[in-house]
């Protein structure tokens, strides 16, 4: 026998999944939403996404000084997610600075993939909102023009449905579900997002507790405190679920593995916390939308949640506290 044996501690077989395959699955899951964005907002949305993804990968490769710019795919995911929470046609420099902040202060400063505390894409968005709020707050949102791929969408702008009651009543639930409303590039189409999330769920990459808790609380709080202006309490709750970034946030941002709790109970707490803070900001804050801040805040308390939700081991007895 010439070749030496490989010897390792058991187990000796491993699943074929890798970090890269997980990230590719996330990219696949984002495809419906990306496609929908192009269909709704035209070529400018595509350009925004390309700038964001390419910059993200380049910045990460430069920081880590490596040639393989796709690598584990996490930078591409961050780049695409960041594009999803931008307006469809922001200035190019805004995208570049935002996504570079996302990669550097959102991720690499903490030691790169696996160690970041906050969702990088949302850090990028928070930086952009705070720096150039003029592009993201107010009546600055492009009206979608379905299938007009070459249209200049920046011509007509409006507020998002969350801008006020008037804007809210101007959109139907169907349009909210399909995504034919003004808003961030990737957040408008609930349909596309659900399709993508179904893929992630099928592949076992997301746990329903987080989106369940998040969306559930948004619905309940929307129904109770929303004022029922949208044709009754329950439909107002539904409106809050479908409008704005709740779907994108709950299905893709709050389920980001690195920055959320690992325990089952912790995931539920995380989702509920996101829902509560989102609705607090929407209902009582000065900002129209609170998903970004809600998730970032819950990211911050994730280590604490993890510490307090260590599950009972098999056959273990709860110690009387």
């Amino acid at each position, binding site marked *: 026998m010439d070749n*030496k*044996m*490989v*010897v*390792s*501690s058991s187990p000796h077989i491993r699943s074929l999944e890798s970090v890269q395959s997980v990230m590719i699955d996330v990219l696949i899951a984002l495809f419906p939403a990306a496609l929908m964005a192009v269909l709704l907002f035209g070529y400018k949305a595509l350009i925004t996404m390309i700038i964001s993804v390419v910059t993200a990968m380049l910045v990460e490769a430069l920081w880590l000084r490596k040639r393989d710019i796709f690598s584990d795919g996490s930078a591409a995911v961050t780049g695409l997610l960041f594009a999803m929470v931008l307006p469809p046609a922001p200035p190019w420099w805004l995208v570049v600075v935002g996504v570079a902040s996302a990669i550097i202060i959102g991720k690499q400063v903490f030691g790169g993939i696996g160690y970041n505390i906050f969702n990088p894409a949302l850090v990028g968005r928070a930086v952009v909102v705070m720096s150039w709020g003029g592009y993201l707050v107010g009546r600055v949102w492009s009206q979608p023009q379905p299938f007009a791929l070459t249209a200049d969408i920046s011509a007509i702008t409006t507020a998002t449905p969350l801008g006020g009651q008037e804007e809210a009543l101007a959109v139907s639930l169907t349009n909210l579900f399909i995504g034919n409303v003004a808003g961030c590039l990737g957040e408008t189409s609930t349909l596309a997002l659900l399709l993508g999330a179904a893929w992630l769920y099928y592949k076992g990459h997301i746990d329903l507790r987080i989106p369940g808790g998040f969306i559930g609380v948004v619905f309940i709080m929307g129904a109770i405190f929303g004022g029922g202006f949208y044709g009754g309490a329950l439909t107002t709750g539904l409106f809050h679920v479908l409008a704005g970034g709740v779907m994108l946030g709950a299905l893709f941002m709050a389920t980001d593995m690195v920055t959320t709790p690992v325990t089952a109970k912790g995931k539920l707490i995380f989702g509920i916390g996101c829902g509560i803070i989102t609705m607090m900001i929407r209902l009582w804050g000065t900002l129209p939308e609170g998903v970004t801040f809600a998730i970032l805040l819950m990211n911050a308390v994730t280590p604490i949640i993890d510490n307090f939700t260590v599950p009972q081991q098999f056959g273990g007895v709860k110690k009387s506290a």
Partner: protein
Amino acid sequence: MLIIYAIAALGVIGLLFGLFLGVAARFFAVDTDPRVEAVKEELPGANCGACGYAGCANFAEAVVSGEAKVNGCIPGGDETSKAIAGLLGQEVGSSVQPVATVFCIGDSFKTSDKFIYDGVADCEVAGNFLGGFKTCSYGCLGYGNCVKACLFDAIKMGEHGLPVVDTEKCTGCGLCANACPRTIIKMLPRGDSGYLVLCNSHDRGKSVSKACEVGCIACKACVKVCPEEAIVMEDNLAVIDLEKCTDCGKCAEKCPPVTIYRRNAIPTEAQALAYAAEKSAESA
């Protein structure tokens, strides 16, 4: 009037404050020794633990109480020892700042492996796993526990699978030596002179020569040739007493596997890589 008020107010507050402190002083009979602070100031503050105490502050307390020696701080070297001794009015003991030395030249090209290890990248773990993947059960496993232990960035894992010490950066704290599960790294007094047997294997000659091209085979050629009787065999390994060594170099000439080197001529990483290139060219 205002001035009187001001003086009165401050005076009253001052009085109260003094009172509190008077009480406090009573309760704090065991105040910290100012000398502890002074000693702490002189320490490098790396909290490396090389002195055997939990940190610089802890060491400072121990020095002042007489528990530890003034030259206990290894990274600080002579300068620190002198300063502390000055503070405490003590004599400086002789302290030669040591340097970490790697006692193995069996790089990955001159030794063989029993199997390919796949698992936790840690020397201790790998070494405990079926006795280590190296045929030589005393040789360097190359996972760099020493590198991880060094606080001063003074030790690197070379491409040839052996640690490389940057003697200029090495402070002689000995953390790497403690971290090595196979005690391949030893702390020696600084210097270029004197010869060393760069092997760590206590195996019998036969199994050493099977495992490594350059291991000490315990042939005793060096022991016989040494005019100063500075070399002794310790459990199948030749050991040179640096204090007795007169730098004649006869042992190095006689050593059949060429394990003995003068301290300033220890084989380098570059030499090892060149050797590897030569070897692969030969076999090709």
